[in-house]
């Protein structure tokens, strides 16, 4: 389906090789764990489903640990899609509406609040939080831990006794887990409970095989190199498609306004920066919020169509294929209400945290540092920018006030350093500089 890129790199073949090696280690290896790094859109869910099916086919009872109920339900649905006969158990909490109602339509899925009710099923799936309450059961021979980089070490500690061996899958570039209280006391310890599950796992088991999925099927050729260089400097990846494989076109020509020009730039180059005049603003900068809403409105009004390897015909760019990303919830709320004023109600607007793992054709991002008088660790966090810059299949439009480069240069750098803590790369400050330098090449000045 995908043509071999001009460089001679065959993404399909590279991805298959990686997947084969992962499955070989998982099914036939002798190590207790296998770690897979998956950059954005590299087929992590596909891998998890495939590994689950193969383990089930090999007669190995499997538990799957995901981090949120939405992730769990999504996996259950994907498994059923691939094999509607496979006996799956959905372990859930006793809260109201503990799982997606769509699961009720799947005859192969049994649901229960008690692990004992699900004993003997080929696959049992739940969240880490729910698994932590399961006691006194025979350990599963195998587990898959999904989104393992977003799982905290202490959450793994609570469930690791439930399985003998496990496949750990996740994206190291996204937002790190965090604690709401200080945990400096344990910094530098191999089992620091606030660190990521993978960090602890590898500190104690450095010999475990580590793989990575080398191809992003989501990110276009225009985005993969930037995202790879800026956020995955030591584990680079490629896009599955080449320049020209994807196209974004609009039936209605540009009216010459800032939003239209930046849309055209992004359609052409994959990136567009709509730059507003420098000014210090509160988080819900009305001009920036309005600009974001206008870009979305124009994306919908101009009759966009996305051409890609997924279908022969261009697919209309509809509201469900567009998302807006922000750093803060109040910004998301402000954009939602600005969109409502423009008559747009069905475009997803959310924070980076909630956009993790999701995919759209076009994203519009309110830059986390736009208009800020100061940068904080929160706004500089590498994972936040990475999530926002890697949700799109075709194009990403960033709305930002001028002056962020100066803000970064003026940012005081007096971070404390904990002995024994592995320095996380890339640094948010550097990644932000790299992304801004790239965006500057696709800048459209807004004329409010």
């Amino acid at each position, binding site marked *: 389906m995908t043509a071999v890129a001009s460089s001679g790199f065959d993404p399909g073949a590279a991805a298959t090789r990686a997947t084969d090696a992962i499955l070989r280690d998982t099914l036939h290896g002798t190590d207790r764990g296998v770690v897979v790094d998956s950059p954005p859109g590299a087929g992590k869910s596909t891998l998890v489903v495939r590994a689950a099916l193969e383990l089930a086919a090999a007669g190995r009872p499997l538990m799957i640990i995901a981090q949120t109920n939405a992730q769990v339900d999504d996996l259950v649905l994907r498994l059923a899609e691939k094999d509607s006969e496979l006996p799956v158990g959905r372990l859930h909490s006793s809260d109201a509406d503990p799982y997606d109602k769509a699961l009720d339509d799947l005859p192969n899925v049994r649901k229960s609040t008690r692990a004992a009710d699900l004993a003997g099923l080929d696959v049992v799936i739940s969240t880490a939080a729910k698994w932590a309450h399961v006691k006194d059961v025979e350990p599963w021979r195998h587990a898959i831990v999904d989104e393992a980089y977003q799982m905290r070490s202490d959450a793994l500690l609570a469930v690791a*006794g439930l399985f003998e061996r496990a496949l750990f899958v996740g994206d190291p570039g996204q937002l790190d887990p965090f604690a709401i209280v200080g945990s400096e006391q344990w910094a530098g310890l191999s089992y620091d409970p606030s660190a990521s599950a993978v960090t602890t796992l590898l500190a104690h088991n450095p010999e475990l095989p580590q793989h990575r999925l080398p191809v992003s099927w989501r990110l276009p050729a225009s985005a993969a190199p930037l995202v790879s260089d800026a956020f995955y400097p030591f584990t680079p990846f490629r896009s599955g498609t080449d320049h020209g494989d994807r196209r974004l076109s609009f039936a209605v020509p540009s009216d010459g306004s800032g939003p239209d020009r930046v849309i055209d730039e992004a359609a052409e180059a994959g990136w567009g920066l709509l730059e507003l005049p420098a000014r210090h603003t509160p988080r819900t900068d009305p001009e920036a919020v309005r600009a974001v809403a206008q870009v979305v409105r124009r994306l919908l009004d101009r009759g966009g169509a996305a051409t890609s390897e997924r279908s022969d015909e261009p697919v209309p760019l509809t509201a469900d294929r567009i998302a807006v990303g922000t750093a803060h919830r109040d910004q998301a709320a402000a954009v939602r209400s600005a969109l409502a004023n423009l008559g747009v109600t069905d475009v997803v607007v959310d924070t980076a945290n909630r956009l993790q793992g999701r995919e759209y054709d076009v994203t519009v991002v309110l830059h986390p540092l736009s208009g800020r008088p100061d940068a904080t660790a929160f706004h500089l966090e590498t994972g936040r920018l990475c999530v926002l810059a890697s949700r799109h299949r075709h194009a990403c439009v960033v709305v930002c006030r001028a002056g962020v480069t100066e803000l970064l240069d003026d940012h005081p750098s007096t971070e404390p350093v904990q002995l024994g803590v592995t320095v996380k790369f890339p640094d948010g400050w550097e990644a932000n500089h790299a992304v801004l330098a790239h965006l500057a090449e696709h800048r459209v000045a807004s004329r409010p």
Partner: protein
Amino acid sequence: MSLISTLARLEAISTGRAQPVATVRHRHLSERPLVLVPLTTAGEAGAPLGALVGTDRDAPRLLVVPQPRDRDLRFAFLAELADIVLPYVDSYADVVEAAERSETDPETGKRVKVEVDLCADAPQLIVPSRSGIDFVRLLGRSMRFRRTAEQEPEAPHPAPPRVPLLGRWLTHFGERARVPGSSLLLALTDLLTRHWATGQSGVEDQHLGALLAWIDPPGDESGDTAARRAELARDADGQLLCPPAGPATDPAFDNKLLAPAIERYDRARAALAAAEDGLQADDRLGDLTAAERGIRGLVESRTRPTWDAVWRGLDLLRELPEGAHAADRWTRDRWSFTGHRDRIIAGEPPQPRRDDAVTAANKLATREREQARLDAQEALDDPLVMAGRRLAGEAFAGEVTDVVMAYSEGKRPSPRPLVTVHTEDRPHLGERTKVYRSLGGKPQAAEFVGYDGPEGGDLLVLRIVDKMGRGKEPEQGSVPEKGDLVCFTLFEHDQRAGAKLPDPDDTPWTHGGPPGDPEAVPLPEQPDPVTEEDVL
């Protein structure tokens, strides 16, 4: 910094006086706290220079190490400290009341209630500032592994008998102080900044004198002027008029006053050692005593202002009524105190240098739970804290404008009344977001149904889902009525206990296996080696 507290700071600047950021006292204060004002020696780790300590504000005990690099003098100081602190701690250990605790029955694995002792009250240590808390931890760490002569008769430099025990208690106080909302060990600067916003930054608030100057400036003086004087003013000798609250001393004090005094002491001691006869020794002993008295005077002169400031700060705090939930958290402190008392009685070893994986995870879980509990309780106890949560979109208050009875579907319909609330607040509500209000001290839950009117408007429709009794009709007073003023929060009021972690002996392979495993992280319990280098 939330906008409400920023505003309070700005008001403080414009009025020249600190402004309240709390309307009740959010920490329990003991009737009889033990105040500790320690000083340390610059450049040395864990070498105390002296301290004022005690429970009587008019009669502090002065402890001094005239030559901080002398190990024997340091031990003598710690032994004296133990003789003051331990009887204070013990006085709370013996008075108990009966209480219930759930435990896991080892036979059945079920949770059962058992009756246990709970200390009726607990000791409370107050230090001037946050670095004082760090110093308490450091002292605890330096003492708890010491071996006494009884334990190791052969070892050189045995510690006085009660020193390791004091180390274990100070370690416990230091660890407990990391639990949000706890009050066994408190820093006065933290207490004051929790309740007042000054017109200076958080960095400057760490200076106790400057902080008090903003909260309670002398006479008509503005807080700013008084604070700057407390921070910077020096006498003709170049000494600060308001000495730092410690444990670090001012370098000018070290260089101009302390160093010569210690030198004089050293000389006097050497001279005494070299005395050739009794008469000469008597003379020289007098010199030594005088030299020591000089150092004691210096230490007292630097600690006494801080001692008085601590008590003055406590007076100011006592003027605030205690928050309703502070007692609940103090009960947790009593449990913590009782637990440590029991561990010591049971002969358990001192706390290890570093936590094992399970202990670390348990502590983190407890602290996160306590943080969430504290945040909720402070908001429920204090309208000013709740105002901050409302501004942040995490709570809303308003008037009930309509109540419509409705019922759940199913065999036994239960009441699910729809309540419309008019509010000026802008909570972050989504479909079916759970909200809670306090009903007779217990949380009642409701779900957000939608807006009555435009999206994001000021009329919110909620469905009450619990605490209405078992009948088909809600119990009297369990449903708000039209005209009632209500306050709902998006955060929960109670904290559920987390899942139980494995025993340390069952630490899984992902975390290095059980700590006893020689391949795993070692558990060093040996005392620190005593080296000649300890004394330069």
